[in-house]
């Protein structure tokens, strides 16, 4: 397999964002007819690398060569013409158009007969293109009515067809987490098809499931902290070693302010009993003590997000009860859960956590307006006082309490979200990836805040970007897999578990 020519080569590609170096002189080569597994931690630079590959962003430095020629790809449409395409996780097919219409969208010119599109010609081509990926669905089915598997296949077929249309030999397909939405059988089909496609194309495979990568790729490339760590032939790979390489260094004890970790109080704060949501997660029962930090871990689709969604009231469970300090909660209503004292730091603070166009004070005071009143009306001096107190307490770096939130940095925006919940009397806080997209300094601050919260007796459910962070922060860990709670382990200071033990449970 090695006697082949490289199709795609990135040389010393560097990309930095304000406050973070996403890629640091990364080299990446794809050879003809191979499947490359690309793995790395969150924040290792995989998504940045992918974005550069398909022209969504441009590198700051470095070279991008396709088939030996340097190229600059302006956008994904341009990349497709060069025979580089990506199957996006959320899909990029237009839902109301049919399979066939999506297949040829914006490239129908070849099917014109006397100015009109020839449905027959399109149908013939579509059938032959789709036979490659073994899709036998009716070509007129709107994409909205197809399964994720079919959509994925149609996208693959489209990319293959486009490369043929633009006469690009050996196209490069990037598959981002292709198996998360598939059933077991569909996964098998996918890899059978990929093996066939490999004869005329190269595939970059990105997946959480290490077995999948090891089992199906020819070569594995590992990124860590925006740098190349290593790469090797998949035949020689063993999962334990990959895990080691990915985590890289040994556990840094001080990173998560573990010295400030406290033993939770005895009093039970949250009790979840037989909570279930059909098709998403099976009945689950657990409890949190006062001041306890519990981490929920699991793959996408393990049901952990839905469990948190039910606790915060954003989703409605089918059965079960949630009680906070022995008071049963009304389910499926955020206003009820917020009133009961459950807070929520969402994963996407820009669209879910903040009123970006409003001031820091407005955001911080959102939940406590009723307490900032004098004579029945909101009192500006009290507002200011509370805002300043919270800015101080959470160390939000802002020019003033009346600065517009959109102008703060990511970390300070996140601290503003936390401040919002802190200023009201909450008992439980659900933190959904609290440090995502936040620079190192701000991460520190957020860890400090989390520790302070625990000391104040606030219980927390946390889902982190990295397993390391989970282990470092929590008192106890709940592991979910395929909608079930599979394990529960203590993460007390003395006995922090090893990441690779947990991976074994999750995957």
């Amino acid at each position, binding site marked *: 397999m090695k006697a082949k020519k490289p199709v795609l080569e990135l040389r010393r590609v560097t990309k930095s964002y304000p406050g973070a170096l996403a890629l640091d002189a990364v080299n990446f080569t794809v050879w003809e007819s191979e499947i490359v597994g690309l*793995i*790395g*931690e*969150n*924040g290792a630079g*995989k*998504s940045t690398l*992918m*974005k550069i590959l398909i022209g*969504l962003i441009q590198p700051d430095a470095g070279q991008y060569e396709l088939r030996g020629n340097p190229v600059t790809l302006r956008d994904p449409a341009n990349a497709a013409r060069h025979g580089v395409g*990506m199957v*996006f*996780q959320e899909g*990029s097919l237009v839902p109301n158009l049919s399979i066939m219409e999506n297949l040829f969208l914006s490239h129908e010119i070849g099917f014109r007969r006397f100015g009109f599109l020839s449905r027959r010609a399109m149908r013939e081509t579509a059938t032959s293109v789709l036979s490659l990926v073994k899709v036998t669905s009716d070509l007129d089915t709107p994409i909205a009515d197809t399964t994720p598997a079919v959509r994925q296949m149609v996208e693959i077929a489209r990319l293959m067809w486009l490369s043929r249309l633009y006469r690009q030999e050996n196209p490069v397909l990037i598959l*981002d*987490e292709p198996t998360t939405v598939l059933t077991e059988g569909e996964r098998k089909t996918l890899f059978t098809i990929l093996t066939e496609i490999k004869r005329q194309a190269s595939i970059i495979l*990105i*997946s*959480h499931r*290490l077995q999948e990568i090891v089992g199906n790729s020819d070569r594995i490339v590992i990124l860590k902290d925006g740098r190349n760590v290593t790469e090797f032939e998949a035949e020689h790979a063993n999962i334990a070693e990959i*895990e080691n390489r*990915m*985590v890289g260094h040994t556990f840094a004890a001080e990173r998560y302010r573990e010295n400030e970790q406290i033993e939770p109080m005895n009093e039970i704060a949250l009790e979840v009993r037989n909570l279930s949501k059909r098709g998403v997660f099976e009945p689950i029962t657990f409890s949190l003590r006062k001041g306890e930090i519990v981490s929920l871990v699991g*793959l*996408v689709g393990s049901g952990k997000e839905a469990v948190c969604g039910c606790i*915060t009231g*954003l989703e409605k469970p089918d059965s079960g009860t949630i009680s906070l300090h022995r008071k049963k909660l009304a389910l499926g209503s*955020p*206003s*009820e859960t*917020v009133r009961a004292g459950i807070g929520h730091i*969402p994963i996407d603070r820009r*669209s*879910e*956590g*903040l*009123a*970006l*166009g*409003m001031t820091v004070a*407005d955001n911080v005071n*959102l*939940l406590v*307006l*009723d307490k900032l009143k004098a004579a029945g*009306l*909101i009192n500006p001096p009290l507002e200011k006082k509370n805002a300043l107190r919270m800015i101080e307490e959470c160390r939000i770096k802002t020019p003033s309490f009346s600065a*517009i939130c*959109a*102008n703060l940095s990511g970390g300070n925006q996140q601290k503003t979200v936390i401040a*919002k919940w802190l200023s009201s009397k909450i008992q439980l806080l659900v933190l959904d990836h609290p440090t995502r997209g936040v620079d190192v300094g701000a991460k520190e601050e957020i860890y400090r805040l989390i520790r302070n919260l625990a000391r104040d007796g606030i219980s927390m459910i946390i889902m*982190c*970007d*990295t*397993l*390391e962070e989970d282990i470092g922060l929590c008192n106890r860990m709940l592991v979910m897999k395929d909608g079930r709670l599979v394990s529960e382990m203590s993460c007390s200071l003395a006995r922090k578990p090893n*990441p690779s033990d*947990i991976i074994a449970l*999750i*995957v």
Partner: protein
Amino acid sequence: MAEIKEEEGPSITEKRITTHRKRERIPAIYFAITLLVVMVVLFTIGNRNFLSAYNVNTITSYSAILLVVGLGQMSTILIGGIDLSVGGLMSFVSVVLVIALKTIGAWAFPLCLSVGLMAGYINGTILTRIKIPSFIATLGTGGILTSLALLVSPLPVVVPASSYGLLDIVNGTLIGMPNLLLLTLVIFIFFYVILGFTTAGRNIYYTGSNIKMSWMSGIDIRRTRNFAFMLSGLGAAIAAMMQTCSQFGGDPTMGKVYILQSIAAVVVGGTALTGGTGGAVNTLIGALILGVMENGMNVVGVDAYFQQSILGIVIIVSVALTFDRSKTAMIK
């Protein structure tokens, strides 16, 4: 570590969203105030009588009614919606008021207020329960209200002389100030306080700024949206009553011009159509700008219909300047 947690791959919409630039924007209200001052200065230079008591009175009376309907309109724009039914509602209230004055006397006023609140409630309910975007829902209800107005009275009706006494609530004076202006002042303060200093009013801003966040933070977004539309109904009803009283008669087509003018007053004042920014003071400035503009154009002799065109242009320009394009990737 790693691949255990979901990492989001590149999203297609990302490119658009990340282009959102951080920059300090000068609040639109400063532009609005500057515009107002410049216009007053220019018109005063051009016409010595511009600041005469008579002319100032003309401008303020015009602006007063516009301000009242504009304040209501603003509430719906602040949540990111719009109320195109204010015109139909004003027409309807106008004829209902005259007819009710004949039959039930002073009770006509509370009746009309409740008509306004009811119409707003229905708009809000269509929005939140049937889930139709406000611009089309209110286009529909506005059409219904207009035809109801014509059904009640196809032609303008005059207030019978026997009821003139009741009209003093608008037409009279108190300690030398016309009631019309005092009433407007009261309503302005009402809106200013409600929006700025009550939880319900603040919730309108939060909802307009980020409705998903508001929902997730426990704000009852359904009630908030309903409330905003009720405020709009209230404003339109009061404005219609003021107009009807000061003209001693109702007109089933009276409201039509106010659809455009109320939106213009709101957006010229700097309240963005995207919601969440702006306020009562903005609309006050906006209403004054339109008042001065209308008056100035009349004095200069701009054709009344051409003024409509100018108003349309003013709306488009103001929206273009204030619309927050970072909020959505798709502008439809």
